[in-house]
C-alpha cells in the first residue's frame, strides 16, 4: 500500500541517543545560552566543583583562575584548585561522562548531579574542537601521585578518549584543568564572570581565589575566615517529605530485609513504635520483604505519614555560613561603613524539608553597584553558598525583598542607596524553579523567613542611620540657641518698648539643656507644641477659588513632620 511507503522505517529511522549526544543538541539545558552567560556558567561549574571537593576533604579552598584571550570571543581558561585531586581512573569519568558524579544523597551540596564538569568539556569541544588538559594530583595511601592527561569526549559513547598521558611530579594534591572556548564573552556586567567570583567570595569567606583576567590584571580575593566549614551530614529524608515513588525507590535499593527495618533505616524520626502505628492503621504486614512492596502499599503508608505527627527533621545536616563569617566576607569585599548580618534558626517548608535563611546588609563604602559614578543598591542571591546570577525575577528572594516596605525603615529611595543585600538559603533540597538552578521557588515559608531576616537587618540599618543623623542634629542645637536668643530678646524689647535686660543666665539655661540632651541625660519634659492634626478642606472648592493665606497651612504640616522625625 502507498501509505506504508511514506511511513516510518523503524529499523532505519529509530534511534537511541547517549546523554552526551542529547545535551550536545540541547546545550541550553545545561545553561549554555548567550555568550556572557555561557562563560559564567563554566566558572560556576568549576568553582563549585572545587569547593565541594576541598570541603569534603577538609581543605581550605585556594583556587587559581586564569582567563587568557586568544582572539575575539575565544578564550583559554586555566582553573587550578588545592583539593584532594581525582584518582587517574576517574578523571575522564568526571570530565567526559554525563550523568556520572557523586552519588545522590539527601545532603546540603552545591553542585548538580554529574553534568557540570562534563558540560564544560562538551562546550569546549563543540566550540573549539580542542581537547581538555588535566593535571590531577591525589593521594593513594600516603603517597601523592600526579598525572597529566589530554583527552577528548566521545559523544557517541558518553565517555572520554585519552590522547596523551604522562606522570606528573606531584607536591601537593589538587586538580588543574585547561579548556578553550569560543563564542563566549568575558564581561564585567552583573551577570558576567567577574561579578560571579566577587559574589562567590562573599558567600564563601573561607576560600581564596586568585583571578588573572584577560588584560593580565591579577585580582586576589583574600580569605576572610580561616575555618573550613563543617562538612554537612547526610540527612535521612523526613516522612513528611517523602512520596510513594520515593518509598518504592528506597525499597528497591535497601539492604534491609523487612519493611519495618527499611522504614526505620531510610527515614529520620521513624521509630519502631511509629512503624507499628502504621501497621495498625494500614493493616500492612511490616515483616514483608522490601522488594515485595506494592505502589498501593507505599501510597497507604505515605497517606499515614501525612496524618501523623513527627518531630521536625534533624537540622545537623544544615551548615550555614554563619553570621560572623558573612560579616567577615562582606567587610573584606565591600569595606562598608556599616554591616549587619543574621543567621536564622532552621525551619521547614512543604511539611518536612528543613532550611535556614542567612542574610547580610552592607551600607556605604563600596556597597552597592556602581552605575555612572553613582552607587545603587544591589541584591546578591545565594543558595547553599552558590551565587544565583540569572532569572532573578521569579525568585523567592526577589519576591520577599520586593514585598518589604523599605520606606518604613527610612530608606526612601532604595534603588539609589549604596547598599548590598546578601541572602543565602541553606537546605538539603533547595526548590529550584528551573533547570539552570538560578532561582528559588517562592514557597510561602521561605519567602516569610527571608522577609523576617531582612526586616531585622533593615531595622539595624535604620538605627545606624538615625543615630548618625541624630548626632549631627544635636550638635547643631546649641548653636541655634547662641545665635537666636540675643536677637529675639532685642526684638522683644523693641516690641515691648523696654530696655534689653540681662539674659546671659537664660541663655546658659537653655544651652545647658541642649547639652544635657546631647549627653543623653534626662531633661524635664517640654509641653510639646500641638500639631495641626488633620488637613481641613474648608476653603477649597471645585472652582479653584482658594483663599491664599488660609490654605497654605497644608504645606506647614508636612514640613513639621520632617522636623519631628527623630523626636517621636
Amino acid at each position, binding site marked *: 500500500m502507498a501509505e506504508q511507503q511514506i511511513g516510518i522505517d523503524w529499523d532505519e529511522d529509530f534511534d537511541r541517543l547517549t546523554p552526551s549526544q542529547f545535551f550536545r543538541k540541547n546545550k541550553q539545558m545545561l545553561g549554555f545560552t548567550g555568550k556572557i552567560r555561557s562563560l559564567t556558567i563554566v566558572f560556576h561549574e568549576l568553582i563549585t566543583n572545587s569547593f565541594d571537593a576541598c570541603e569534603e576533604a577538609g581543605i581550605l579552598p585556594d583556587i587559581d583562575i586564569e582567563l587568557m584571550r586568544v582572539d575575539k570571543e575565544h578564550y583559554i581558561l586555566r582553573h587550578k584548585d588545592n583539593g584532594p585531586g581525582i584518582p587517574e581512573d576517574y578523571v575522564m569519568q568526571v570530565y567526559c561522562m554525563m550523568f556520572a558524579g557523586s552519588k545522590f544523597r539527601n545532603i546540603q551540596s552545591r553542585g548538580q548531579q554529574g553534568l557540570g564538569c562534563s558540560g564544560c568539556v562538551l562546550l569546549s569541544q563543540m566550540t573549539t574542537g580542542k581537547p581538555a588538559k588535566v593535571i590531577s594530583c591525589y593521594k593513594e595511601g600516603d603517597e601523592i601521585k600526579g598525572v597529566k592527561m589530554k583527552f577528548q569526549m566521545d559523544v557517541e559513547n558518553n565517555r572520554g578518549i585519552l590522547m596523551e598521558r604522562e606522570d606528573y611530579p606531584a607536591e601537593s594534591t589538587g586538580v588543574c584543568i585547561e579548556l578553550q572556548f569560543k563564542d563566549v564573552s568575558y564581561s564585567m556586567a552583573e551577570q558576567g564572570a567577574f561579578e560571579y567570583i566577587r559574589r562567590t567570595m562573599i558567600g564563601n569567606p573561607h576560600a581564596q581565589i586568585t583571578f588573572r583576567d584577560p588584560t593580565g590584571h591579577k585580582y586576589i580575593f583574600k580569605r576572610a575566615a580561616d575555618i573550613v566549614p563543617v562538612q554537612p551530614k547526610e540527612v535521612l529524608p523526613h516522612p513528611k517529605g517523602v512520596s510513594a515513588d520515593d518509598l518504592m525507590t528506597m525499597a528497591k535499593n535497601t539492604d534491609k530485609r523487612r519493611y519495618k527495618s527499611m522504614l526505620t533505616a531510610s527515614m529520620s524520626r521513624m521509630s519502631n513504635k511509629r512503624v507499628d502505628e502504621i501497621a495498625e492503621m494500614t493493616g500492612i504486614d511490616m515483616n514483608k520483604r522490601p522488594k515485595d512492596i506494592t505502589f498501593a502499599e507505599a501510597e497507604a503508608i505515605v497517606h499515614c505519614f501525612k496524618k501523623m505527627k513527627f518531630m521536625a527533621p534533624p537540622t545537623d545536616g544544615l551548615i550555614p555560613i554563619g553570621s560572623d563569617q558573612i560579616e567577615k566576607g562582606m567587610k573584606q569585599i565591600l569595606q562598608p561603613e556599616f554591616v549587619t548580618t543574621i543567621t536564622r534558626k532552621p525551619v521547614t517548608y512543604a511539611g518536612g524539608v528543613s532550611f535556614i535563611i542567612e542574610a547580610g546588609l552592607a551600607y556605604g563604602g563600596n556597597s552597592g553597584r556602581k552605575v555612572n559614578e553613582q552607587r545603587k543598591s544591589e541584591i546578591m542571591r545565594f543558595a547553599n553558598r552558590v551565587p544565583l546570577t540569572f532569572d532573578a525575577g521569579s525568585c523567592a528572594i526577589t519576591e520577599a525583598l520586593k514585598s518589604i516596605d523599605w520606606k518604613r525603615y527610612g530608606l526612601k529611595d532604595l534603588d539609589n542607596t549604596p547598599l548590598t543585600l546578601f541572602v543565602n538559603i541553606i537546605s538539603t533540597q533547595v526548590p529550584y524553579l528551573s533547570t539552570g538552578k538560578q532561582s528559588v521557588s517562592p514557597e510561602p515559608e521561605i519567602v516569610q523567613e527571608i522577609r523576617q531576616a531582612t526586616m531585622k537587618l533593615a531595622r539595624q540599618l535604620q538605627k545606624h542611620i538615625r543615630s548618625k543623623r541624630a548626632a549631627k542634629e544635636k550638635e547643631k542645637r546649641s548653636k541655634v540657641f547662641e545665635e537666636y536668643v540675643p536677637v529675639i530678646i532685642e526684638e522683644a524689647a523693641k516690641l515691648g*518698648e523696654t530696655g534689653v535686660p540681662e539674659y546671659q543666665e*537664660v541663655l546658659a539655661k537653655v544651652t545647658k539643656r541642649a547639652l544635657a540632651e546631647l549627653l543623653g541625660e534626662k531633661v524635664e519634659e517640654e509641653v510639646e*507644641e500641638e500639631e495641626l492634626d488633620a488637613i481641613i478642606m474648608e476653603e477649597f472648592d471645585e472652582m479653584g*477659588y482658594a483663599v491664599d493665606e488660609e490654605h497654605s497651612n497644608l504645606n*506647614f504640616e508636612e514640613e513639621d513632620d520632617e522636623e519631628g522625625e527623630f523626636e517621636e
Partner: protein
Amino acid sequence: MTEIKQEGKSHKELRKEYTFNKLKGLGQEIIEEIEKQQVPSIKVPSRGTGNIVYDDAKRYYVLGDRYGRRSLGNVKQIRKLGQMVYVANFCKDLVAREKTATIREMYYVSEGWGISFKNQQESNIVGEDLEVTLGTTREDLGLMPEEDGASVYGDITLLDDDVEINAAKAGKSGYTISPTIDQVEFLDCGVERVIAVETMGMFHRMVQENANERFNTLIVGLKGQAARATRRFIKRVNEELELPVYICNDGDPWGFHIAQVIISGSAKLAHVNHDLATPNAKFMGVTASDIINYDLPTDKLKDVDVMRLKELSKDPRYKSDFWQTEIKKMLKIGKKAEQQSFSKYGLEYVVDNYFPEKLEQLEN
C-alpha cells in the same frame, strides 16, 4: 432701615489702640520672663481639628481651649517664637502708621530680619499664630489678603476715608469690597435686604433686570467662595443695618458650602468666626427640590460631588432637617444644576419668577 449706627469711627480707633497694646504686651511679657530669669514661652491656641469645636449657641465653629507653646528653650520652637516677635514688630509699625501690607510683601521684607522665613508658607503660619495668640484679626494687624472681595450693587452709601460711595452708582459692576472693609462706615442705606449670588454672570443678570430696585435689595456677587472681606461685609450689613441676607448659589455641594461658610463660618478660621460668620443669613437655593420643581437642566453628580455631599451630611453645620433632606434628595436624584440654568425658560425667568417665589417662601 435707614437709621445708621454712629459707633463706627470710635470703633475703628478703639480697634487700633487695642491691637497696638496687644502687640506691645507680647514684647513686655517676654522681657518680664527674662528679667525673672525664666525661659519665656508663648501660649498659642491650637488650630488642629481636635481643637475646633462647633458652638451650638453661637451657631458657628470656635476654637477650644487646647494650646501649643513656642518656647525659647526648645530647638524646634525657638525659630517660630523669634519669627513671631519680628512679625509683631512689623505689624505694630503698620498699625502705628495706619498702613497695610500683604503677607507676600512681609515675606520679602523679612529678608532683612535676624530670623527670616524659609518660604512663604512659614510666614503664613506665623502670621496666623500671631492672630490667634493675640485674639485679633489679620486685618486688624494690617496684614491684608491679596484679593478683593465681592461686588456690591444697590442703594447703600459708604464712607471710605473721606470718600462717599453709593454702590448703585459705581458702575455696572458695582462697588468692590476691599480687604480694608472694617475701616469703611455705612452712611446710608435704602434697601431692605441683601441677595448674594455665586457667579458674576448671575450678578450682571440681576443688575440688568433691575433686581435691586424690584426687590429693594443689595446684590452681592460672591465670585465663588466668599473672601474674608466679603464675609465681614455681609456680617456687618446683617448686624449693623439689620438687613436679612439671602444666598443663592449653584445647586451642588460646592454651592451649598459657599453659602454655609458665610452662614456658619469655616472650621479653618474658627479663631475669627466671631467676626466673619452670619448665622442669620439664609440659603435661598438652588436646592435639590428646586431642581425637581423647576425641572432644571442638570449635570450628573460626579464621584467627587457625591463624596462631598456625604461629608457635608455629617458636618454639624448641616444637621438641620432642611439640609439633611436636601442633601439626601440630591444624592437620590444624582443631579446638580447651575444657577444660570433657569435660562432654559428665558433670560428673565430667574428674576421674574424664581426670586419672587423663593423670597415669598423665606420671608413668610
